[in-house]
């Protein structure tokens, strides 16, 4: 088990009287690609927030890279997020007054030190070297998502966490983004993708299906 990057031990999350997650356990190995699926309200987002250190479970333990993060302070969670996790969002969440290059450099700035050359290489890697000086409003949805991926990768995270990464993309761009994921997986990155889309889940090694806050089934490809 020394190869595990993430372990959820019977975590629950209760909002008032509503249980968003109930006794969920999950182990993710280094380099593994996992898809989390489920209908709306099944607890996918809650699970993603907890894995992404943006929320804490009401009970249970979260072990990330060998460290129990379930009792960490907000400040501690921010540091873990910064150092170990690369976040990819369905809405991209780019800063609209910064260029693609600057959006990537922001992640460097809050992590350690901005390096324009390295940020540019990250954009080139996702095929956006020529669009580095463009503002988000000048980029297509697919290009914005690729900027988001470049930003997530820039600090070499231990875990890439993607929330519906193709939810706002057309088929062509979906293909481009999935290709990038395949490439990252091939290079040994650990990826957890939350998705509605069975086509996206197809590439994952394991698919966890959540229903009513519980793991309903697990499928291996």
């Amino acid at each position, binding site marked *: 088990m020394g190869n595990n990057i993430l372990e959820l031990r019977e975590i629950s999350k209760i909002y008032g009287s509503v249980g968003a997650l109930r006794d969920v356990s999950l182990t993710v190995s280094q380099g593994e690609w996992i898809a989390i699926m489920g209908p709306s309200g099944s607890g996918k*987002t*809650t699970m*993603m*927030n907890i894995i*992404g250190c*943006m*929320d804490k479970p009401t009970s249970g333990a979260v072990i990330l890279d060998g460290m129990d993060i379930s009792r960490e302070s907000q*400040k501690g969670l*921010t*540091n873990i*997020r*910064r*150092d170990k996790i690369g*976040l990819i*969002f369905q*809405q991209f*969440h780019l*800063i*609209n*007054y*910064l260029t693609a290059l*600057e959006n990537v*450099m*922001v*992640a*460097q*700035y*809050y*992590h350690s030190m*901005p390096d324009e050359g390295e940020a540019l290489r990250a954009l080139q890697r996702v095929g956006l070297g020529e669009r580095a000086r463009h*503002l988000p409003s000048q980029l297509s949805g697919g290009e914005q998502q690729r900027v988001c991926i470049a*930003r997530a990768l820039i600090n070499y995270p231990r875990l890439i966490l993607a*929330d519906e990464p193709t939810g706002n993309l057309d088929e062509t761009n979906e293909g481009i983004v999935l290709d990038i994921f395949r490439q990252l997986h091939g290079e040994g990155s650990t990826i957890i993708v939350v998705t509605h889309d069975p086509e996206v889940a197809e590439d994952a090694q394991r698919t966890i299906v959540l229903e009513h806050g519980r793991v309903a089934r697990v499928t291996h490809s």
Partner: protein
Amino acid sequence: MFWRMVRGAVFRQRGRVLMIALTVALGASLATAMLGVMLDVGDKVNRELKTYGANINVIPKGASLLGDLYGVEDGSGVSDQYLPESELGSIKTIFWAFNIVDFAPYLDARAVLNGGGDVSLTGTWFDKRLELPTGETLVTGVRGMKSWWDVTGEWLAPGDTHAAMVGSAVAERNGLIAGDTISVGYAGRSVDFLVKGVFDAGGSEDDRIFVPLGAAQELTGREGRVSRIEVSALTTPDNELSRRAAQDPQSLSVKDWETWYCTAYVSAICYQIQEVIPGAIAKPIRQVAESEGAILEKTQFLMLLITVLSLAGSALGISNLVTASVMERSREIGLLKAIGAHNSPVSRLVLTETLAIAAIGGAAGYFAGLGFAQIIGQTVFGSAVEPKPMVAPIVAVLVVAVTLAGSIPSIRLLLSLRPAEVLHGR
């Protein structure tokens, strides 16, 4: 990177920036205009009030004693005490000479009109061109000091040696109009004067006949002498120090004395006039001096109130706009937190952006305020408001303080934002 983000936020979001900058500019322009006018309003209001007459009366020491002991009024012409006309120019040599706007000497006497009844006769300067001991020349006299007189006919000109201005009450009693000739007698001598004007002063002066000082001196045989001098001076409103000094300047400490002497209090100016005219007592016309002080203080208070209210309004506007802006940017702020930014760097970023926008708005507002001050100066006082260098740093400090105060609610909101809530709605 920090400054790239600030620059991007300031220069690439023009609509939002413009609203905040405009709010700050409005507050800063009002503050600049009001502070500018407030700092200059003392002189302006003072000059305005000077058109309503003198605020200092200078009389011989002996006449002052008669007044104090027996209630003999200044100018009644019964005291046998006089001041030398040759010393009048010295008034413009005192420490606060620049604040002496106008002055006029008076020689009072009881005379006989047209061989009939008694009348109060006053010799004075109307438009006297005076050579000062400093080598400068000054035009002074009652024409400048009694500008509110309602004159039928004409004011006396410098060359009119045997002309007179008759008060409306005297004119009515004696059926006089402009163009008539009157005979004024004193101690057996008699001189004819042409009535050039009949004036209505709305007071005791309506019972007098005003003639040139030289003619009155010749008629009464008091060449080179005057009974009293009225002085119109720009003064600073009284305070505790000036009131103590007015009672006894010698009771002040050396430091207080210097402060008092070097401030344009009416008592300090009176003291300095006494220094240059030996044997004279200079007394403030209290009601005028106090009214001027009260009007000045109230005007300044009003300006200050408008400044404070405009800044408070500006702070509220900034607060609303910045809070709305933070709410609008909650996803961006949530993202910064999600990728590892702590509260303090995010707060610093938002505050720096807001201050940068405020600096732009403040600078624009400052220059607009200088323009507003000129408009106020020209409209209200008919003259320009002199820009005071101290206004710029005061406005800068106020803009920073108002912006920081206005940003407090937005910073509190920003600190409470949680990335999971703003990015994923949970």
